[in-house]
């Protein structure tokens, strides 16, 4: 089930998608998501889904994305069954499709944007530095905390802790000797990091400078235009055409399973 996270793990690659400014990728991801949410019908959703595949290919991240899809299978199956039972199979399929579209839209972002560039983008979008920095540091410390968790688990198991022992309640309580050291250790770490930050003048001026800068290029403007047009078109179809002139839409637009 944790394979779901594969499509959200950044890997440094030299592709067109990786070279885009994070703000562009973010805009594209949001656009795709909105478009995905606009439609309930199977065929349009399928079209949206298919239109995102070229971008995944451009980012050369198909394998990771596939792994995530497989991880998603459980959740999808669950949704499929519940919705088929209570509403209809057609609806269930379209719900699953929406889920996949949403997931793919954001995985496109996380696959191609480096966490620190994301923090930089946040700053450029005038989010206060402290938040962007907190995010950036959180990402930086993930491997550290992961390693520490393993060590703590090893230490407690060496004292006879059996994680699989007992009923469900007991199993949850078995994790306390692991959770508490992680929390305490993280608090200690936070204090030490804070001292290091203070010692290097963190927060001393409101006009903080930066070594690197993000610049929008022609390719960025191009992609944002494409995304904007697609979004505008989708909005038009969803709100104007579908409501006021539904007869203009071809029959296959509304196709669904008879059940």
């Amino acid at each position, binding site marked *: 089930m944790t394979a779901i996270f594969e499509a959200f793990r950044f890997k440094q690659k030299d592709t067109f998608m990786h070279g885009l400014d994070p703000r562009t990728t973010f805009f594209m991801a949001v656009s795709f998501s909105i478009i995905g949410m606009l439609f309930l019908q199977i065929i349009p959703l399928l079209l949206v889904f298919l239109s995102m595949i070229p971008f995944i290919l451009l980012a050369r991240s198909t394998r990771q994305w596939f792994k995530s899809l497989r991880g998603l299978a459980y959740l999808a199956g669950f949704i499929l069954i519940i919705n088929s039972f209570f509403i209809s199979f057609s609806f269930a399929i379209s719900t699953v499709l929406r889920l996949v579209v949403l997931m793919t839209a954001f995985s496109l972002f996380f696959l191609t944007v480096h966490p620190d560039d994301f923090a930089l983008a946040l700053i450029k979008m005038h989010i206060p530095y402290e938040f962007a920095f907190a995010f950036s540091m959180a990402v930086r410390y993930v491997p550290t905390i992961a390693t520490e968790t393993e*060590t703590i688990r090893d*230490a*407690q198991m*060496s*004292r*006879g802790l059996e994680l699989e022992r007992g009923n469900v309640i007991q199993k949850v309580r078995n994790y306390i*000797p692991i959770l508490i050291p992680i929390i*305490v*250790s993280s608090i200690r770490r936070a204090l030490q990091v804070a001292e290091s930050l203070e010692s290097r003048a963190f927060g001393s001026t409101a006009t903080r400078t930066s070594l690197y800068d993000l610049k929008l290029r022609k390719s960025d403007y191009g992609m944002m235009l494409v995304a904007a047009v697609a979004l505008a078109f989708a909005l038009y179809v969803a709100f104007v055409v579908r409501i006021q002139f539904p007869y203009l839409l071809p029959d296959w637009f509304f196709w669904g399973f008879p059940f």
Partner: protein
Amino acid sequence: MFEYESGHPVLRGLNVELEPGQVVGLMGENGAGKTTLVKQINGLLKPTTGAVYVDGVDTRETSTAQLAKKVGFVFQNADHQLFADSLHAEVAFALRNLDFSKEEIDDRVARYLELFELTRYKDQSPFLLSGGERKRLALASVLCVEPKILILDEPTQAQDALQKEKLLKFMDSFRDPEHILVLVTHDVEFAIKAVDRLLVLSQGQLIADGSPHQILSNPRILDRARLLPPQLTQFAHKLAEQFPEFPLNVATVSEAVEAVNQLIRSQR
């Protein structure tokens, strides 16, 4: 007491047997495989090929929890173990996991808190103790199980001289035919005083096994394992260059003093 060989990608071609009554030192550069090796002893890791036998038991068929009765592992950072509401609960943790009776638990907790001079903090939270006290608490909570094999991972880190002396005394008391003590460390000065037999790992392979003095004065081994020779060893070797009769295996200051006095007398 046990032997093993391993084809683990981190460790290769090891074939070692540890005898009871010894303090065994394990040294090597970071990433050499020291931690991987000691984790084989209490079953946290199992060998990919080959086998590890602890007191006659094959670790591949035993869980770490079961091995915890025989093998005590004190990790480098005490804060990675402490979690309970009180010192009593902390020390009792391992005993409870291993299904000791309530009377036995109470008895052992009292004894070991006393041994490590922590009784007055019995009902306090472990987190309120000082760094050195927390380390002693971690030791107490592992030792109360009275394991036959004890693994200490970098116990001298950030300890001052008095604390190291106490540790040395404690390790001495563990030296008897029923026990084995494995010391994983970088501290060459401490190792040369504490250890009977030294194993050196480098890049997953055993590059030395034997007398600490010989090994810690071998430049090739020291270089590969990123170690510095203890000062006394350097001293002995430099003097021996001019006076070949000077003993090379001085481990403590008193031994060195004796040797120097002897040298001075002999030169009169």
